[in-house]
């Protein structure tokens, strides 16, 4: 599936992105920066150190993860759905010798690539800000890509079954939104009741943060293999499931 034709699908999306690259990257930076400034300074001034770091440093890694998740999710949901349903771009591509699997592979990698761009843009700001070092930031890059693949794979499942744009609200309200508040973006998971901490360990965002926060802050990683495994599983199973569902939707 990962071949020239999947790459052609990836390239198509890249070419569209390139036309709007500047506003797109600015948009990717501005919103997370507002979170970071507003919450980091506003809330941070009320808080002592969090987990041994100034609050704004603690929050920064969370914002990198949240932003990567959002970027991959929006691309795999709204943008991919436009190409599948509204613009019939997938249909056109399938008239060429490209299979549905190859289209999905191209879309999966593209959504992950776009979230990688988002995550790296914020990372760059954090380096300039002095919150993390260039060397630490470099170590974060593969973890961002992995996070992107995870949420892009999950997003494609929703896209493959969605009848319209409104359907995505269920995913945001029931999955993405709650996950944001129990995965340790804004405060350590250890602040939650024990049962919620256990639940939190089942969520991919928790593992993305467990991987990325120590890397950003220059701390040592614990159970890195577990976090990587969970992200790979969510992304991989999501992608495989989206193949099955998209096949049912388009090829039967």
């Amino acid at each position, binding site marked *: 599936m990962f071949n020239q034709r999947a790459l052609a699908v990836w390239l198509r999306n890249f070419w569209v992105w390139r036309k709007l690259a500047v506003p797109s990257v600015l948009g990717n930076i501005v919103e997370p920066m507002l979170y970071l400034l507003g919450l980091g300074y506003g809330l941070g001034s009320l808080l002592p150190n969090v987990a041994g770091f100034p609050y704004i440093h603690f929050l920064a890694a969370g914002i990198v993860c949240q932003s990567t998740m959002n970027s991959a999710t929006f691309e795999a949901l709204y943008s991919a759905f436009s190409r599948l349903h509204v*613009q*019939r*771009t997938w249909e056109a591509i*399938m008239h*060429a010798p*490209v299979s549905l699997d190859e289209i999905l592979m191209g879309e999966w990698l593209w959504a992950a690539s776009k979230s990688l761009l988002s995550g790296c843009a914020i990372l760059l700001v954090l380096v300039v800000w002095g919150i993390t070092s260039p060397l630490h930031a470099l170590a974060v890059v593969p973890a961002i890509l992995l996070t992107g693949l995870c949420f892009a794979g999950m997003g494609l499942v929703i896209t493959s079954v969605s009848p319209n744009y409104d359907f995505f609200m269920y995913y945001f309200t029931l999955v993405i939104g709650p996950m944001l508040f129990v995965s340790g973006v804004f405060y350590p998971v250890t602040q939650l009741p024990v049962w919620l901490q256990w639940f939190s360990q089942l969520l991919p965002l928790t593992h993305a943060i467990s991987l990325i926060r120590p890397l950003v802050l220059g701390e040592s990683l614990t159970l890195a293999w577990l976090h990587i495994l969970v992200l790979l599983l969510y992304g991989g199973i999501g992608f495989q499931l989206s193949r099955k569902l998209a096949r049912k939707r388009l090829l039967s």
Partner: protein
Amino acid sequence: MAVLKVEHLCKQYASELVVNQLSLTIPAGICFGLLGPNGAGKTTTLKLCLGLITPDSGSIELMGMPVPDAGPKVRLRVGVVPQFDNLDPDFSVAENLIIFGRYFGIKPDVVRANVPELLAFAGLEGKEKSRIRELSGGMRRRLTLARALVNDPDVIFLDEPTTGLDPQARHLIWERLRQLVAKGKTLILTTHFMDEAERLCNCLAIMDHGKIIAEDSPKRLIENLIEPVVVEVFGDGLDDWLATVATGTGCRIERAGETIFCYGQDATAVLQSMVTFPGLKSVVRQANLEDVFIKITGRELRD
């Protein structure tokens, strides 16, 4: 040599057999038309032949390759003009062709060099940089045709290529399609326009309820399946005329609303029977493909 060979093809959705034991053989270098009312299974048949959906049973061979088992590579030498516009709105006219070439593995420079020729063929000279949104329906359809030629295909599938176009645009498309056949390409198109089928196609298959119910050249379909002369009768006194003398004319008589169609060997008997009904009017004409179509698919409305 047969470009497309279909045997006993079946495809069922829910409880409806959309394609029912369909068999077809299409030789190279002709324009083949699938003619049928809405919902006859034309589009499904095309999609099955392209390997875009999986048949329930039967076999398909496109240019010697088994479909869908051979996978997407059967479409390397195929062009497709779909029923609904799916040009890429995020790109300009020229970019649409270049991007589409990429899906075939054709390098952008190669397509770029061919863009002027492709656009000239589609009557879109100088439109390289136009946005898709700026194009009229006819221009979009022509661009879709140009896009289908990016890989210089041997076979081109066209699903209702002129639906929704004005007469000028339709004539231009017909003219281009004839040029393609003259160049030796095989065209396989669906349509429900009789004039399109009659003018363009060397061979026609009339399809209904998932089956082919007649197959021949347009001329022979008319010769063999319908009486040569049609008299259309309408006006005041139609009911009286129908009840009293019409059946005595020896013609096959059909009613559609306020018009009665009399099919026969000549018009004399019908015209004579009308003499005593001064309120009636009539049109005498030769039978055409539409008469054949209505005769074998019926007059009731389709959705």
